[in-house]
């Protein structure tokens, strides 16, 4: 229940000055910052594309504000006691944009298509986990079989990446054509894509199966919805202020104060679920193989001040390994440790690291020197975070070498284990994201990718993460993840920094909502004047 109130972190700058009138059947343009490349949810992995795909595709279920699974294209479902068989009852009145009917076969087609090696799915395939087979005994039933119990399955079905494609359209087109001509059953249908310029969607007039949390029923309120790609932040914000676009995503932090003061503009900050931005402390070698040193390092970090100084209150501080809007988030992690450099010094002394003549601590002839690796370009000011942490750690006697690297070389260094601290965030709808972050099976090694960047290898934690994957009952599952979060905090395996947040501004548009992962929903949106 902790989640709902956090969804809109800072909404409505100008307040009551707005007396906007709604335009019927309006056209709206929303500016995004990163070029998009394709719209086949079974194939594409990018969050920016999910913001568009969410409008074109419906899912079987959705997660409400309290992260409870609710019916959408599936009206009901039954999970067998062994957790291996899911029987979905489906709506019978749903049509795809090409006029074909949604049914049990369509569900099976989509799941099989994701699993097929020819699809080369890189994201959706992870969401369906141990999916084995699917059968459609009749039009309104789909029976899905898993190889092993997989509790995240139902939550994941709410993701836009598991949106349902029209089997007829997807089977008729070559994969490379379908990716640019997607056909779903969502409130907007795809019209055109001009690479690096814009994506045009048009209202689907036959739409009448909005999920229960929508504010109206029937077709969408906007007639057309265009996503325009404007990478330059100055141009993007200028286009919004002059009214050539009605919404813009990714507001530069430095602009937020001005945007909030402008009474014409509505500022929205939407936290993303999953695992927040965290520092992964490499436990596979000294000095961070000692939990006491990890805890001392964390105690020396003034995270609250760094986040406040860099993000001006737009991004909230993260404490644990889960973002606050994720199912299973344990509020107990908040304020569970303090910033106390003096105590950190004492703890390092006790751990045997004694200050040498140059101020750097030593133990058995080894200097307390660490390497902090961060990506380039400076995504979300993560390099500035590195600089803050560097000075914090130096103050208590660490020698810190900060290195920035582009994505590909960074990955190579990570695989070689050439770091003591490295940052990671992972957007996901289900807490099972932690399974791949704290599991030795996913530790990166040369030529092997993986997200266990802290090289956490703890039998008890691994077992708990597996249990979280198997436990179907939501209350029992939440308990498992509470224990997982406590373990990670107590052992300082990773250190939470900030919660990734999608910021956007509206000028002439209203009624935007967000799904559980933080993707915008334009179904209820209207043009205003």
């Amino acid at each position, binding site marked *: 229940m902790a989640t709902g109130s956090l969804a809109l972190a800072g909404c409505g700058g100008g307040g009551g000055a707005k007396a906007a009138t709604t335009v019927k059947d309006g056209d709206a343009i929303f500016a995004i910052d990163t*070029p998009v*490349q*394709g719209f086949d949810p079974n*194939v*594409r*992995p*990018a*969050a920016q594309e999910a913001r568009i795909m969410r409008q074109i595709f419906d899912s079987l279920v959705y997660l409400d504000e309290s992260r409870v699974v609710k019916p959408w294209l599936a009206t009901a479902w039954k999970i067998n006691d062994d957790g291996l068989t899911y029987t979905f009852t489906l709506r019978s009145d749903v049509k795809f944009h090409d006029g074909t009917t949604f049914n049990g076969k369509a569900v099976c087609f989509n799941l099989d298509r994701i699993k097929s*090696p*020819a699809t*080369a799915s*890189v*994201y959706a*395939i*992870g969401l369906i986990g141990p999916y084995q087979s699917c059968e459609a005994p009749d039009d309104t039933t789909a029976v899905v079989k898993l190889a092993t119990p997989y509790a995240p399955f139902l939550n994941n079905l709410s993701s836009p990446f598991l949106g349902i494609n029209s089997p007829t359209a997807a089977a008729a087109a070559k*994969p*490379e054509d379908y*990716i*640019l001509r997607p056909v779903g059953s969502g409130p907007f249908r795809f019209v055109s894509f*001009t*690479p*690096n*310029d*814009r994506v045009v969607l048009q209202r689907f007039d036959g739409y009448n199966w909005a999920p229960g949390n929508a504010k109206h029923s029937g077709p969408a309120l906007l007639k057309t919805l265009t996503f*325009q*790609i*404007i*990478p*330059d932040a*100055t*141009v993007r914000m*200028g*286009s919004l*202020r*002059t009214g*050539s676009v009605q919404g813009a995503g990714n507001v530069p932090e430095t602009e937020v104060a001005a945007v909030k003061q402008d009474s014409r503009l509505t500022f929205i900050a939407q936290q993303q679920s999953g695992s927040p931005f965290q520092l992964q402390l490499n436990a596979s070698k000294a000095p961070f193989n000692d939990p006491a040193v990890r805890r001392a390092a964390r105690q020396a970090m003034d995270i609250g001040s760094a986040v406040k100084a860099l993000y001006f209150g737009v991004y909230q501080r993260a404490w644990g390994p889960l973002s606050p809007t994720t199912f299973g988030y344990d509020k107990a992690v908040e304020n569970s440790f303090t910033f106390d450099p003096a105590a950190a010094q004492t703890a390092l002394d006790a751990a045997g690291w004694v200050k040498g003549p140059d101020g750097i601590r030593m133990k058995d002839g080894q200097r307390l020197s660490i390497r902090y690796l961060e990506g380039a370009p400076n995504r979300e000011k993560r390099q500035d975070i590195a600089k803050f942490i560097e000075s914090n750690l130096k103050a208590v006697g660490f020698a810190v070498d900060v290195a920035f690297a*582009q*994505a*590909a*070389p960074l*990955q*190579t260094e990570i695989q070689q284990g050439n770091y003591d601290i490295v940052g990671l965030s*992972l*957007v996901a709808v289900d807490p099972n*994201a932690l*399974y*791949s972050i704290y599991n030795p099976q*996913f530790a990166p090694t040369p*030529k092997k*990718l*993986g*997200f266990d960047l802290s090289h956490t290898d703890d039998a008890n934690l691994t077992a708990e993460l597996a249990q979280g994957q198997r436990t179907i009952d939501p209350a029992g599952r939440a308990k498992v993840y509470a224990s997982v979060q406590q373990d990670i905090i107590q052992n300082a395996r990773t250190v939470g920094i900030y919660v990734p947040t999608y910021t956007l501004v509206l000028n002439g548009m209203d009624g935007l909502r967000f799904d559980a992962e933080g993707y915008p929903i334009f179904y209820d949106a209207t043009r205003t004047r």
Partner: protein
Amino acid sequence: MGYLIAKRVLAGLPTLLGVTIILFLTLRLLPGDPLAVILAGAPPTPEMVANIQQQFGLNKSIPAQYWDFLTGAVTLDLGSSYSTRQPVTSMIAQQIGPTLLLALAAAGVSAVVGILLGSVAAIRRNGVIDAFVRVTSLVFTSMPSFWVGLLLIMFFSFKLGWFPATGSGSPQTLVLPAITLGLSAAGTVTRLVRNSVIEVLGENFVVALHAKGLRSRVVVMKHVLRNAVIPTVTIVGLQLGALLAGAVIVESVFSRQGLGQMLVQAIGGKDYPVVQGVVLVIASIYILINIVVDVSYAYIDPRVRSALAKT
């Protein structure tokens, strides 16, 4: 003449082959694995990795991959993008038009501005106007184009509302990007035209024309400029290559579609087939322009033609 062209084209082929080898090796020898970028958002299982490697042919040896690329390229099949699965040839076909249009329009801006300012400066040389033009041309060449682009957008789009700031559909959207890109090249042209007009003004035939009693304006417009502008046309042609490369930044500021943006994204995503395809196409255009310039020289100047024929 036909023999000459054939010879130049044949000489261009080894250059192109060299480009493909260097490009192919650089991409693969630089640290980083495209799989790491492709799978960055999702926890990959070994089966997923193996499947993707097989689908994209990344499990083959580098010489085998190069051979596939080369044999494909001969039949205009440049492979498929890792991220969109699109055939690279059709991606390029879609995006090359806007980029060429931008480069051509910019070359036009550069020629018009350069010839105008250059000749005015030459006629009024060592005066105030000349000094002004010389400083201006220096400013044009030294200003970073993303900054010029932003200034133009601020003033002409956001303040005056004359031209759209972004987009690539209508002709109006071409105006500001073409000026941005063209101004950077105009500085060089201005300098060149100024020198060449001054040179022609000192020729004997100009003195003769004046002596004949022709008005100054006619002498300059009809006789001097025509002679002075010929070398400029060649330079503008050669600039086209640089303008194609410069389009990358301008396309991004003005959110235009085009090859430049495509290349930048592909480099970031380690999308080998797209990088290879785009660079190959740009290199081919460069080489082609060089051939055209060589041949046009021979066409204009018989001395060059006979010299080339002898070698």
